[in-house]
């Protein structure tokens, strides 16, 4: 039996007081028993290969791409010889259907999966990643998603997490954008014992852009640890990060969200917004939104509202005959539904809506 060590993850790009315990997190790691089986549907116009990207010169930049979780997590893939499944689109390719990856994690396993999306110039690809397990499943899983976008390429990445209450999932993203490239990330956290997720996306190209919408609902003792890092080096690059969620029971979450407006990123704009609804007395919310700036001709904004529902709104809805529990459930479902509506795949969208509805009936 291998020894358990702690892998440090999700470190802030600029750390602060240690007593806050917000600089980074850690998850136990005692080795891996390989990859989890993934069900993959590849649309026409997308090719697949499997590579040890660390060993291939043509993928060196992907292998070295910084991610939200950080280098300690990335090293696990090389150390364990995990091959990356690379999906490539040729220049100008725009597959009509989404690339779908579903990983039903098995209870009791410790797995690592690595994916990469290599989009040629002017190509577009929608990717749906669905992480599931039995509700009571336990285990440890790490998923790394890397991408590089050629000029004017567009990646729409949807990730849905609904893993078991005893499951620890690290869901890590790292990407690089060329001129006028765009990434749209939608992450829905519907269930999961402990989930650590995040990204580092390098907005290196002129007018490269990033839009992120994250919605979560946490219950029982679930914990969500997030670290998002929009790294602006490209002129007129733009990012928008929207995070919304609800905390119930004794659940907890931490959001680290950083906009780094680096010298040279003239005309860059970064906006981040967070809205957290605290529903029960045992919850804990931690938020640390960073704006780092070494360029004058930029704009960075952050806004957050954390707390209960507005009392006047509450009064209005109560006066219409709803009780408090119903109001909170309605608000929670509405937040998830608003983000789910952004999923650019009809089948997935209705499946999520059905899942949310089923959850609220319990």
């Amino acid at each position, binding site marked *: 039996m291998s020894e358990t060590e702690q892998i440090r993850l999700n470190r802030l790009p600029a750390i602060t007081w240690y007593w806050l315990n*917000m600089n980074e997190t850690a998850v136990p790691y005692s080795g891996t028993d390989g990859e989890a089986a993934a069900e993959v549907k590849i649309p026409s116009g997308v090719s697949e290969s499997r590579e040890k990207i660390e060993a291939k010169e043509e993928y060196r930049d992907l292998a070295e791409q910084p991610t939200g979780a950080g280098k300690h997590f990335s090293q696990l893939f090389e150390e364990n010889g995990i091959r990356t499944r690379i999906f490539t689109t040729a220049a100008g390719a725009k597959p009509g259907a989404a690339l779908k990856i579903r990983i039903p994690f098995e209870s009791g396993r410790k797995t690592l999966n690595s994916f990469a999306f290599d989009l040629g110039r002017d190509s577009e690809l929608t990717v749906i990643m669905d992480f599931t397990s039995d509700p009571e499943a336990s285990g440890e899983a790490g998923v790394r998603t890397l991408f590089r976008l050629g000029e004017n390429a567009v990646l729409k990445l949807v990730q849905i997490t609904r893993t078991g209450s005893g499951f620890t999932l690290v869901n890590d993203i790292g990407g690089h954008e060329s001129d006028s490239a765009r990434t749209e990330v939608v992450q829905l956290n519907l269930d999961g014992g402990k989930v650590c997720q995040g990204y580092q996306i390098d907005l290196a190209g002129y007018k490269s852009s990033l839009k992120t919408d994250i919605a979560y609902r946490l219950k029982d003792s679930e914990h969500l640890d997030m670290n998002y890092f929009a790294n602006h080096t490209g002129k007129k690059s733009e990012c928008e990060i929207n995070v919304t969620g609800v*905390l119930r029971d004794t659940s907890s979450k931490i959001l680290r969200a950083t906009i780094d407006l680096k010298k040279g990123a003239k005309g860059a704009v970064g906006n981040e917004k967070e809205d957290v609804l605290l529903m029960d*007395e045992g919850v804990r*919310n931690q938020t640390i939104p960073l704006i780092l700036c070494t360029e004058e001709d930029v704009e960075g*904004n*952050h806004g*957050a509202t954390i707390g209960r529902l507005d009392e006047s709104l509450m009064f209005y809805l109560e006066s219409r005959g709803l009780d408090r529990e119903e109001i909170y459930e309605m608000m929670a479902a509405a937040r998830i539904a608003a983000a789910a509506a952004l999923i650019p795949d009809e089948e997935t969208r209705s499946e999520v809506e059905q899942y949310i509805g089923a959850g609220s009936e319990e």
Partner: protein
Amino acid sequence: MGKDKPIVKDIDRSMYDFVKKEDDAYRTEEGLTPEIVLEISKEKNDPEWMRDFRLHSLEEYNRLKVPDWGPSIDGLDMDNIVTYVRPNAKRMVKDWNDVPEDIKDTFERLGIPQAERKSLAGVGAQYDSELVYHNVKDEAAEQGVVYTDIESALRGPYADMIRSHFMKLVPPTDHKFAALHGAVWSGGSFVYVPKGVHLDFPLQSYFRLNAKGAGQFEHTLIIVDEGAYLHFIEGCSAPKYNVANLHAGCVELYVGKNATLRYSTIENWSKNMYNLNTKRAVVDEGGKIEWISGSFGSHVSYLYPMSILKGRGARAEFTGVTFAGHGQNLDTGCKMVHSAPDTSSYVSTRSISKDGGISTFRSSVVINKQAKNSKSSVSCQSLMLDDISRSDTIPAMDIRTADADVGHEAKIGRISDDAVFYLMSRGLSEEDARALIVSGFADNVGKELPLEYAVEMNNLIRLEMKGANG
């Protein structure tokens, strides 16, 4: 609109940057050893408990690590710092005429006695490691207000009060420089405002560090009793040397039930100063602490006044402006801890970075489980005046109850072209328009200060902004 931008000059510190001959009567060796600490203790005629406290603090200092999350303090070598310098003056006098000419001239050039005559209820003046002048007006004294140097208080009728409060809010274990302070502290003020007394005029302490390569470690302890009101103003400056100077003061504020304390600071240390200061307030039921903070000086600054709201309905406000110019790395902000129901905190800060200066706004809001129905609002705005400077915001929020409302907003940007255009359409030159906008940006602090201090602060900023061309 022209693309040329006005050149924004550094703040003119000539008013503060004059050197007096180091005519001190006594100073310790450079460095930090148990022998030096004992020497200071003996020099100060400490009671036994304080001597032991100093030695314990030194142990903590040696145990604790240098922080790695803020600006570098590699240029600070404690082996080169003189921790105690007694000026050539009587220990402390109440008559301005008894202050030695050289020191008197220093404070007169800084406008301290004039300010006392015009608008203050009392003044304390510290020169290097010792208070050289302390006076409180009769009207204040007659109301029972105590304003004295902390060392006299340590041995007088308030000895027990000092012992039960001294470094209880900021224990030496808090961080490395709190421990350093505990070991070598010297000078500073003790203020006690009795129950129900509303002091209409502020008290002021002014700290001047003249000695090259020295540290200043004054301790300020203020107790505002139930229902009382006090405005305390703190000012500081030093001439610039080519070696590091160190300021590691400590401020402990106790705000009683329904009492209010306004604590205003205009910090204008020279640019060779490492300002590693610690300030903390604890607020009882219905009480209020108001921090007004202007940070303009220092080479490196770590400054985050902390408010602990421990009584129901306690409130805290922090209003600050930080101006980081060439060679400055100013890491400033505040900490709010809500530990009782119905508490509220409000933070409003402005940061300006120019000419390679680095300004970091760092804050934390912690709302504990028992602080139900608490509210907090944090707003921080930063202005970048060129592309060789840096401005970061690092605000943290930790909410441990559902029954709370927290709002936060942050904004980093440059001077808005639209605003400049609007003002120019009203007849201002571009230069004037930009100067006016930058000046107005920092006005959140200026409007909270007494008129005389607001004028001084605005002059510091506005005149230099106005000195633009382009």
